């Protein structure tokens, strides 16, 4: 069994990345994502714990999809700490066969789900088979 009775330790803290050193006042991390394909859409899932719906931005402009989330940091430092909330940012390039106007996003329990519909022309359709 792990114990948490010891005094605060720094062993769980990760060394800051270069970026965070430069932006110490506002740390930002890239959320881990899953991307999978269905017949009609690409689905992007991102773990963004600590983000409330009003702190979330999903932007699709031209060929770029940007996800951003703001978190509120706790007022008091924990006595024992394994994680520290940080704002989220990650950007993706979209290719032309996606319908950016039809993008939808939902945030539930810190999990963001973005659906990017495929353009109708790339959705599966019945292909007539020619016999020779």
């Amino acid at each position: 069994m792990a114990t948490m009775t010891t005094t605060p330790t720094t062993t769980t803290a990760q060394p800051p990345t270069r970026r965070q050193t430069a932006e110490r006042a506002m740390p930002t991390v890239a959320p881990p994502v899953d991307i999978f394909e269905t017949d009609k859409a690409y689905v992007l899932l991102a773990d963004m714990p600590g983000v409330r719906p009003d702190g979330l931005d999903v932007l699709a402009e031209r060929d770029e999809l940007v996800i951003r989330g703001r978190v509120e940091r706790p007022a008091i430092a924990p006595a024992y700490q394994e994680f520290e909330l940080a704002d989220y940012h990650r950007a993706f390039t979209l290719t032309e066969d996606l319908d950016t106007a039809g993008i939808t996003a939902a945030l539930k329990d810190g999990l963001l789900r973005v659906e990017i519909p495929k353009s109708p022309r790339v959705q599966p359709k019945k292909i007539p088979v020619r016999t020779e």
Partner: protein
Amino acid sequence: MNGQAMWNPWREMQRLQRDMEHVFGEAVPAARWSLTGEYPPLNLTRDDKGITLEALCPGVDRPSLDISVVGDAVTIRGERKAELDAAEERYSRRERPLGTFTRTVGVGEQLDPDRTQATYSNGILRVQLARAPEAAPKKIPIQS
């Protein structure tokens, strides 16, 4: 990628990716990380009222969440499930660890299980723990 590595979201998440990434056209994804090791990461605060344990665990299937308190130990269980419409062969990125997790921690103070409260919001599980009433000294009569 070492599939046996302890899951540490910050190792992944602190890896800033400002460069543009492509949604598809990736190589075959590596095997998904499993929730082995110490998951979820925890923060603990203490005050006069009690002890608050916060667990960073987004996207957990709510019915699977289970918290138990015994003595000074708190156990958190839950499961992160794959989306229903996700077929295994149609992933182009798999960075989120899925699976069941169990973590037990001792907080170093005797707890009152009956006064435990928990909330789960925005992917953070917050468990309010109450200290057990201190055992009152018992006066032992001396028989003559």
